[in-house]
């Protein structure tokens, strides 16, 4: 037994050592060959082509039970129905990239005409999406982008810059341009969150915000309970905290709930991105003064139209093309195939009862 296990161990380690020795000077990050094939591109578009009927378009949210995603996909499937297609939404119950990949492969096998996805990890889903594109399936990303060469069109809520900078301006107004603030984000690799946070930091560099100090960016992983406890931790670590920005619907409602029953209610300002239905009671009880969001249903609707137009050959995703999108009118396709829904709506006690989503 001793013998055989020693021999075994040697047999295991020896080849490793050889590879180790041979490995010096192999493929490193800087020398790695990167694929440069961009998926989208030269297929020409005919803006006047008729909308194909019976298109099969699948919506793949970050997670199937996220209420925001549910509203978004409802908007998307409605749009697909309007153009005479057949839409469905499928997705994982955990917000993980690997389960999204399984779904993408399934959708390829099911020979869908287009996939509309909110990526959990821009790079992990990219290979599968490229695979789909190589088989003629059109790919639209919405809300959270994938790698640029792994989709034709990205439907963005509003320009990232506008979202990021406006959040800082709202909180600055609420705390009187002075004091410590923190950010409560979703997951640390969420593409959209990070883009907004970059612009927030940039906005804070302006001289008028010099007295505002961003002390921490906390991550609630878009998990209600984790976000709740992160808020609690922020307040106990920074007792003199003046404000929190939470640019995620899960985060802001969890933070509001903690604040509403703590002594900090009304003393620590909270703003961010939330749905009116989740935030209504906190606006009314004075925990939150103002927050913002676009209509996720419209976002999905726009994505549904974009997918149908791509699959019908009306657009190809090139900059400068025009997308006709039903009740929303028209949108121009910008740089890198990006289409922007429009500026977010600000909600406060005066207008919140006019919205139901």
């Amino acid at each position, binding site marked *: 037994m001793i013998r055989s296990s020693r021999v075994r161990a040697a047999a295991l380690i020896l080849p490793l050592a050889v590879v180790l020795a041979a490995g010096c000077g192999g493929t490193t990050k800087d020398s790695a060959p990167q694929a440069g094939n961009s998926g989208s591109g030269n297929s020409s578009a005919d803006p006047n082509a008729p909308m194909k009927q019976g298109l099969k378009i699948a919506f793949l949210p970050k997670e199937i*039970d996220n209420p925001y995603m549910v509203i978004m996909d409802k908007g998307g499937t409605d749009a697909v129905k309007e153009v005479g297609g057949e839409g469905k939404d499928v997705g994982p119950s955990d917000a993980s990239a690997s389960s999204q990949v399984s779904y993408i492969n399934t959708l390829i096998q099911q020979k869908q005409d287009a996939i509309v996805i909110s990526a959990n990890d821009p790079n992990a889903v990219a290979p599968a999406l490229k695979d789909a594109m190589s088989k003629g399936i059109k790919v639209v990303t919405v809300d959270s982008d994938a790698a640029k060469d792994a989709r034709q069109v990205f439907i963005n809520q509003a320009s990232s810059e506008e979202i990021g900078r406006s959040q800082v301006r709202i909180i600055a107004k609420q705390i009187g341009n002075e004091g410590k603030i923190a950010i409560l984000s979703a997951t640390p690799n969420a593409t959209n969150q990070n883009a907004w946070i970059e612009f927030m930091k940039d906005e804070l560099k302006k001289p008028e915000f010099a007295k505002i100090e961003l002390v921490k960016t906390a991550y609630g992983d878009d998990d*209600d309970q984790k976000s709740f406890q992160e808020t609690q931790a922020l307040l106990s670590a920074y007792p003199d905290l003046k404000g929190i920005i939470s640019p995620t619907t899960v985060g802001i409602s969890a933070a509001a709930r903690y604040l509403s029953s703590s002594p900090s209610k009304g003393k620590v300002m909270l703003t961010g991105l939330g749905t009116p*239905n989740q935030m209504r009671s906190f606006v009314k009880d004075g925990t939150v003064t103002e927050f913002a969001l676009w209509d996720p249903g419209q976002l999905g609707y726009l994505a549904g139209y974009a997918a149908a137009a791509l699959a019908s050959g009306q657009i190809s995703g090139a900059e400068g093309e025009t997308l006709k999108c039903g009740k929303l009118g028209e949108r121009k396709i910008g740089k890198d195939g990006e289409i922007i829904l429009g500026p977010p709506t600000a909600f406060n006690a005066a207008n919140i009862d006019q919205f139901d989503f």
Partner: protein
Amino acid sequence: MRALAGRELGIVLVLVAVVTVTTVVNPNFLSRQGVHDLFLNSSIIALLAVGQAILVITRNIDLSVGSVLGLSAFLSGQLYLADRDMPVIVVLLAGIALGAVCGVVNGALVAVAKVPALVVTLGTLYVFRGLDYAWASATGVHQVNADRMSPDFLAFGNGSLLFLPNLTVITLLVLGVAAYALRAFRPGRELYAIGSNPDAARLSGIPVGRRVFVAFVISGALAGLGGVLHASYFGTINASVGSGRELAVVAAVVVGGVAIFGGSGTVVGAALGALLLTTITSALPILGVPAFWQRAVDGAALLLAISLDRVVMLRVAARLRRRTSVGGAGG
């Protein structure tokens, strides 16, 4: 008995040490609000740890507690969607009943069909969670927000009795009853006998199957109660509530000195284990430990606890051996 008291004393000492150090760094930690949060955060996990400890003492385990908690939390949400003015007590009883039913399923499979607990509860972990999600999709209710629940219910979850949060009061009540029952009642003592040696327990006439079955029902009912408390505390419910909680619960039980192979340990120790792990998790960010280390805490604490137990056990065994050999020479 003295050894057990020693174990609990050990946890309390570690707890005091952690709290002292953290308070020196940030006095806010021991503020009224700080202590309040600490108790609140550990209440539900301690409740589950009590149920789990009863099972582990009998040399069984329930990995499905996280899923049962999720299911009963979702039930609370659904009840409030049906009737916003549902009395709190009805929701509590419904949650406990649902949890008990889950416990009956586990218990029947283990005690009657004689399938090992680890396998059964791993299976029902998937099944109960799946039912939770299926319920969410079937009704189209993916999330229940605080504004759909009755204000009484939310006030109950976030309220306090004197200076203790309501949730903590409930956990302490359950803990008191369980601790007394395990110590003073014959069936309670029998659980230890079952865990020490199931065959011997059976031969000595203890209804092993029935006792284990009841232990599963209790664990399920407590997980069900935990689900309702979770709903009233957090006020937002979706189908993924409580995922992965089972490991934290098992960690708390083992850190609390309940032997994983049954036969020894107390529910008080398990509850203290839950309090200790929660306190350490809350203390780390204040002590400036990078957030990522927090995730390793439960595992590291568990390993440390069982290693220490082992060392103590070997010492005691060696001392006993010496005493026996001395006694042998004398006699």
